[in-house]
């Protein structure tokens, strides 16, 4: 305050009536500092809000995904009675493989169930009882008998999957014996009986990683989509890496400054901003309809994603090539190397870490891409695991899209789990890119 009063005496001549500038400033200081604080706080809140969004997103998906990683199984008393299997007693001594394959296992399952629940009568109840178990249960019985033919005509205990409705019902922990979700009162009581006799067990869901897509949520897995992703990414990397590096080398090292070069550069920059779905239209109209490549194939998906990621890779590669010191080029040129030799044996190896980082980022981008693949038909329901790049296939993001659309409750968890797998794949890829970059920067 003393400082201000001293100042005010200096120019007091013209501030008799009004306040001096300095006084005005000093009076407004408090307000200004308050404003400053508020502004800073808003900034901090924005950053924290960003964090909150990340945490909410990941947390929400993780919490939804967890139920998908385990699954309820039930131990059934199964009787492989010859008459139930529809196999003639007389031929039972020399059971042929064909007989075992074509026997009536559904009947065995049903009859065994009725034996376990003798009180169940009436068609409607019986049907309700059968609905508790996965539609895959009869095949489990079949595989069991084929693996152990000695069980023929004998009673045994076999673990089968519960139906997804029961599975969801158990995971949401409804009070025992009470109806919930799509489980009726009667079904709930049977489930309670099974639990009381310690026949139900929760196991890790391996089949989520080893099975392909299925209409039955309890059987659906991501193996097919994962294979499709790997094949598609293989094609993408195989095409986009050499093309991108070659294009970048030309533009950085050889291209004369002329209109053609400018035109290429404008094109690359614009392509980087074209919406991905437009690349899907290109794939559909040109690659599938004009060139006649097969629909839904990883080959076409890979080509479309290559065109999409090429700008990213070219831009990153150019930056890496530009960062190679000119002294290296000049030294090699001075020793008599040709321009091409300089480029391929000196510039390219030096720029490689940066180029690979760029390629990894490009592939990460392609890995999460969905929209263009919908256009080229990679959205079909495909049960077989694809084995070649011209098989019909789907990829992980599209599988997520398909499952997210399914009405069954159990698919909600499956979708979230597939998202977790996709996100962890992306994390591994991005981490490797970051590590490569930091290693490169230290040099």
């Amino acid at each position, binding site marked *: 305050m003393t400082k201000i009063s001293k100042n005010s005496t200096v120019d007091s001549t013209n501030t008799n009536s009004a306040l001096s500038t300095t006084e005005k400033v000093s009076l407004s200081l408090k307000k200004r500092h308050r404003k400053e604080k508020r502004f800073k706080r808003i900034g901090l809140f*924005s950053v924290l809000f*960003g964090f909150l969004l990340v945490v909410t*997103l990941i947390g929400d998906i993780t919490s939804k995904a967890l139920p998908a990683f385990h699954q309820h199984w039930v131990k059934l008393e199964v009787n492989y009675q010859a008459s139930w299997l529809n196999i003639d007693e007389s031929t039972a001594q020399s059971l042929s493989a064909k007989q075992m394959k074509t026997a009536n296992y559904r009947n065995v399952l049903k009859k065994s169930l009725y034996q376990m629940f003798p009180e169940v009568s009436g068609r409607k109840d019986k049907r309700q009882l059968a609905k508790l178990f996965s539609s895959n249960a009869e095949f489990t019985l079949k595989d069991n008998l084929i693996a152990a033919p000695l069980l023929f005509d004998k009673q045994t205990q076999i673990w089968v999957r519960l139906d997804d409705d029961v599975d969801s019902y158990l995971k949401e922990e409804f009070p025992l014996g009470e109806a919930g979700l799509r489980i009726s009162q009667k079904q709930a009581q049977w489930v309670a009986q099974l639990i009381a006799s310690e026949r139900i067990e929760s196991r890790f869901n391996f089949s989520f990683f080893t099975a392909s897509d299925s209409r039955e949520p309890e059987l659906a897995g991501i193996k097919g989509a994962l294979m499709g992703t790997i094949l598609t990414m293989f094609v993408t990397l195989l095409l986009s890496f050499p093309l991108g590096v070659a294009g970048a080398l030309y533009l950085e090292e050889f291209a004369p400054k002329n209109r053609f070069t400018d035109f290429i550069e404008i094109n690359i920059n614009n392509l980087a901003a074209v919406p991905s779905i437009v690349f899907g239209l290109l794939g559909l109209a040109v690659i599938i309809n004009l060139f006649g490549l097969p629909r839904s194939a990883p080959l076409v998906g890979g080509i479309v994603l290559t065109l999409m990621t090429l700008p990213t890779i070219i831009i990153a590669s150019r930056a890496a090539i530009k960062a190679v010191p000119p002294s290296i080029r000049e030294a090699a040129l001075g020793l008599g190397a*040709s321009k091409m030799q300089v480029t391929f044996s000196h510039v390219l190896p030096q720029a490689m870490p940066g180029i690979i980082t760029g390629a990894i980022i490009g592939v990460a981008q392609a890995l999460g891409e969905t929209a263009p693949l919908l256009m080229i038909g990679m959205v079909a329901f495909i049960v077989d695991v694809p084995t070649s790049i011209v098989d019909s296939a789907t990829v992980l993001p599209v599988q997520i899209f398909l499952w997210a659309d399914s009405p069954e409750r159990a698919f909600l968890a499956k979708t979230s789990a597939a998202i977790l797998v996709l996100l962890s794949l992306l994390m591994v890829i991005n981490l490797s890119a970051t590590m490569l970059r930091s290693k490169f920067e230290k040099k």
Partner: protein
Amino acid sequence: MNSSLLFFVLLGLTLFSYWFGVQRSLKVAGGAEHKKELTSLPQQFGLLTAMVCGLPALITLLIFNSAEQIIVEQLLISTLPANIQSLSSVDIGLYLNNIHAMASSESATNLLQGSGISSDNYVQTQYQAAFTLQELNQQASWLKTALVLIIACVSVTVLVRKFSLTYQARQKSESIILALLVASSAVAILTTIGIIISVLFESIHFFKSVSPVEFMFGTQWSPQTAMRVDQVGGSGSFGAIPLFAGTMLITFIAMLLAVPVGLMIAIYLSQYASAKLRAFAKPMLEILAGIPTVVYGFFAALTVAPVIRNFGESLGLSVASESALAAGLVMGTMIIPFVSSLSEDAISAVPNSLKEASFGMGATKSETVLKVLLPAALPGIVGAILLAVSRAIGETMIVVMAAGMAANLTANPLDSVTTVTVQIVTLLTGDQEFDSPKTLAAFALGLMLFITTLGLNVLALKVVRKYREQYD
């Protein structure tokens, strides 16, 4: 031989010709001890031979493969009886599909027998056609194999005959490599041309049946064309205004979230945050940019939309289950890191002297930011926002999963709207004939999308370029 086997044979042949070229050049020089007399290194001779062996043959293989199916199909059609040839193109397509299925599932002898046994004339021709197809395919395959291998061998032979002590193998191979590099960089041009051709041609087809004026200014969007003449509700009107309005609404909501938050994050991280916080916050926010859009779509449809609906209903509002608000907010979340990183670049590009001058005049940090840095960085920030808008307009998966299909013309964010990208996806997924106005409409929408995003990008670039140099 099928194409992939042929490809690997060609690869082997190429590797062999590398070795062959090296050996031939040494022979020309008169043994390994005289190799210094050659103008180029033996490896360069080898490289040239390998490229001359592989490239023309590979190009032939690619061209042959892309033309093969069409030619075989034409030949097959010409052998069919006249009554089938006179069918419409769709029916011929179906007929050919049948034949393809037969030809790939049955053996040749079965097909011959089939055509002999069957008394039905129609079935008989089918069997015969399938047999012809198999034969044609076989002939094409033989022709392909022979052509590719002959081209590879002939070009190598012609080349190695020219080898001499003064043969400039290095210069020749380098000019081939340069041509390859040019070709690779031209892929970008080809892609652009491909995009323009694919959307433009199909759009022109579309505008033949629907007038551009109706498309651009019509307010009714119901692309379901009638299967029968008397069908109800199958009017098939293609007025795209509701789609544009829906896209704008969702983009606007997204920007309303992303621009202030993104900008404040950029300001805070560049002006206030400690180095430690920056090092933590930037990768953390980058996560948002790296999450696939399908994940955002899932989040919007299954988490955000129900929350908004429950909240709205508790206030007594009627909220659609697929509200524009949910899609817009989640899209905004996706765009936050995009806006913040581009704005931060723009802010840090402002010369330090401006900032220091402002501090020197006694301005507080926030005053410096608001009155000096932001105006100076404005072109960059506007450019960033324009790019973000273009990104939001072209975004597909979030709106496909979280916005509706109903083409409502509304400005109410709680209502369900549809967007251009949603309609492209709905019109093109599933099996349809390719030339109905319904599928062609998707390409017309694609054209609009391409033009809009391209225009926004060019505009953003212009804004940045025009005002950037002011302070340099």
